[in-house]
């Protein structure tokens, strides 16, 4: 029957020796080399990594984390979510609320709360003064929304296209909800003007570097977690659900539980990404929940290759890198490029960049 095995053993089996070498090398690069190059080289050195690049990469890492989360649910389980922007933003808002507390002098409240006609913090703001409460909520808030929404959606067997459309409605409705000033989260402006986190100034380059490293650690750990999930039997059940859900049911598995589990994990990872993203960006507002953002997330995964965790990371990096470059260099072209990318990937790269090799060799075989 079920064999108990040491966790470390199981972990070691996630990758081949070569695989682990690559993972550790990348981790070392992000956690040791980048900080060194940033801290100890002068700007005129060719290898110097400027502060802005560190922050930019830190943000990309957060977005890569979102791609990872989306891949788990879409790539492996076959459930396309167009609402992950909502979970990302919720994580961001949770962190933003804590940062807003930090920026206000004692006894003062931000203007958007004054708009509500009150002169103290509403109850749902109060506990976010505590960092640890916030840290827990970063996972719990998106997780809870995902759990409730997922339970109802999966229970009534909404899936495929319908599920995609309903998640889109979810993020759209959340966006409208957060846009309202009456909701009490800063309305259209959102939360901004952050200053301190745990006593460190979020505007300092050094803090930014630490945030970058934290993001790298988050991506690494999340990657391992996802890898752990998808290489387990649970992962195979997920793939089975993607291929033939009713067969899974007739085999005796309850897909509801599996889907709900992976859906909630995915939402929590998004929340974490949002929470790390916000102090590096300095603002969170309902625009993050715009349906377009969530759809763009899908293209990160599609470009990289669905059903491969590395693909999701590669895709997020590529698209966001392109975006940064093109919106600066040829602003008018960006939407053409992005649109073209959507079409090209779906038509010519159904398995994404990671499937390219397979696609080529597969073709030559035939």
């Amino acid at each position: 029957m079920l064999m108990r095995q040491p966790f470390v053993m199981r972990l070691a089996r996630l990758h081949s020796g070569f695989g682990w070498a690559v993972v550790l090398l990348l981790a070392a690069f992000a956690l040791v080399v980048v900080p060194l190059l940033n801290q100890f080289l002068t700007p005129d050195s060719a290898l110097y990594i400027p502060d802005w690049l560190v922050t930019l990469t830190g943000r990309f890492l957060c977005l890569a984390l979102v791609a990872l989360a989306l891949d788990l649910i879409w790539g492996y389980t076959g459930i396309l979510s167009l609402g992950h922007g909502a979970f990302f933003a919720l994580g961001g808002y949770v962190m933003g609320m804590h940062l807003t507390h930090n920026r206000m002098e004692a006894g003062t409240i931000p203007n958007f709360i004054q708009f509500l006609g009150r002169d103290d913090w509403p109850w749902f703001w109060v506990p976010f003064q505590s960092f640890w409460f916030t840290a827990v909520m970063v996972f719990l808030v998106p997780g809870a929304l995902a759990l409730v929404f997922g339970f109802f959606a999966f229970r009534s067997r909404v899936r495929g296209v319908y599920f995609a459309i309903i998640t889109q409605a979810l993020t759209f409705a959340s966006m409208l909800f957060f846009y309202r000033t009456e909701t009490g989260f800063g309305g259209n402006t959102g939360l901004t003007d952050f200053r301190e986190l745990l006593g460190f100034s979020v505007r300092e380059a050094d803090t930014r570097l630490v945030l970058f490293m934290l993001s790298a650690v988050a991506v690494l750990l999340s990657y391992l977690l996802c890898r752990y999930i998808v290489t387990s039997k649970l992962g195979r059940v997920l793939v089975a659900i993607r291929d033939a859900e009713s067969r899974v049911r007739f085999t005796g598995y309850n897909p509801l539980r599996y889907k709900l589990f992976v859906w909630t994990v995915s939402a929590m990872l998004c929340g974490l990404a949002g929470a790390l993203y916000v102090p590096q960006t300095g603002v969170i507002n309902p625009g993050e929940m715009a349906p377009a953002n969530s759809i763009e997330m899908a293209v990160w995964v599609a470009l990289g290759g669905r059903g491969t965790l590395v693909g999701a990371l590669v895709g997020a990096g590529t698209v966001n890198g392109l975006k940064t470059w093109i919106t600066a260099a040829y602003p008018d072209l960006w939407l053409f490029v992005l649109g073209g990318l959507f079409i090209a990937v779906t038509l010519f790269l159904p398995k994404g960049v990671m499937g390219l090799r397979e696609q080529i060799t597969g073709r030559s075989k035939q």
Partner: protein
Amino acid sequence: MRGLSWKGAILWGLLMVPAVVVANTDDMSADERAEKLAEQQKNQTQTRTEGLSGEAASIVERLATDDWQAINDVVEDLEALAAPETLPVLQALSDRRLYFDERGRVLIEDPATGEYSDALTGETAEVSPENLSQPTLTNAIRRGIRPLIGQLQLFSDDVATRRAGAEELADRPRPEMLGRLQELRAEESNPEVLRLLNIAIARLQLDASDPEERLEAVEVIAEVRSARMKSELETLMETDAQGDPVEPDAAVREAARDALEVIEARQRTARFLGDLVYGLSMGSVLLLAALGLAIIFGLMRVINMAHGELLMIGAYTTFMVQNLFAVMAPQWFSFYLLAAIPAAFVVTALVGILMERGVIRFLYARPLETLLATWGISLILMQTTRVIFGAQNVRVASPEWFSGSVQLMQGVSLSTSRVGVIAFAFFVVALVWFVMNRTRLGLEVRAVMQNREMAAALGVSANRVDMWTFGAGAGVAGLGGVALSQIVNVGPELGQNYIVDSFMVVVLGGVGNILGSVFSALGLGVFSKFLEPVAGAVLAKILLFVAIIVFIQWRPQGIFALKGRAGDDD
């Protein structure tokens, strides 16, 4: 289950009946008549005086100033004078067509010819426009001028003019005019003008010292049942500091109370009907926006995220047709909208066919990927529009026959364009229904959508049918765009606002069921308008989304589920 949905259908049908009935009350026809009269009156505005007599001239002369107090004084003096010959001057002043030059001459511009005439003599004057100034005009001054114009119009021989004047006075009676109005009433023969004059006089007589007169006034007002006079009646019901009623006469109070009740009941009805009609109007907009999608998504199962952009292209085609008419056939300009309908259909259908041939046909087996590809198309279409037409909105003017409004009852009016949109929505639905159920194409479409292999075996080219269906769906979206161009702004992002709503309509109505989309669109519109006063516009919308998500729990297949043995399996 099936029975339930038909019950639902009947319920919606019943809800819509009162709206149609209201549209036929004679309230409307009376007001329409009024509007026509007002129109005629406008056209008959005199654009120059016939020369002013001494006293009038000496007052009008003083208009050559930009001191607003002085102008106010002039208006007051003209009121005291009450000389009909000054009417053109007052109208010119109110419409900003009155000028004075450096020599202090007061001039009136004829908007049709661009000529100027001297207000005092009525003769055409040679002036250079750069030397002209305008007397200061504010809304406060206009508020004085309007009743004066109304009063002067009552001296006219023309019934329409008198009617316009009486209408103005019934709206804004001035206490100083009471005596003169009573004189005029004695001479008036036209019943409509007489009725309006009675209202004006009644409103002034609420303060009369004779309780008989007050009672009579309240009765007249009660008959009009206008909400405008509610506050005046309410004053009668007030009590002073000692708790004594302001109105000493009990009979008057009684009459006022009755009148108030009538007015309030009417207001409640108006509010209910207003919500219903506005809801239908919003629903028909949703319907037009979603109908194309109901075909493309509903029948073909293609998740067309570029649907919003098809709407946008329809709207821009309307814009182009408008410009074409302005340049090529200005005399037919007011009919450009009619020409825009087929044009928009053809243009968007072509774009749709291009999309289908170029991208979508390769993706029929992969629905989620069509979603991504069409989203890509939508970005490209949007940016292309931006490059061609600029990021700014373009101006699509409503033709004259399409602007203005229709009053359904007092307090409930709907703009002509919205009425038009409702009618257009039903026209398009009928058209789609006809094509789908009464034509060979419709038959083939239904055959292919139900069983592709079987249809192919029967000699129907599924490939070709896909193309035409997509084209037709896109074309219908284009028609939606024409309608939207008349009520919202036309810009590159036009479609983005409708995409989520459209999908909700189709999903709620039941995918594959066009009738379902009709009911869900109208239902959503009405529901949200009833919710709006309670919850506010945004919360109403959020609640609606939540309701839809919950509803889909209960009936995943939408209102009109297509049930069959071929269930939901993958």
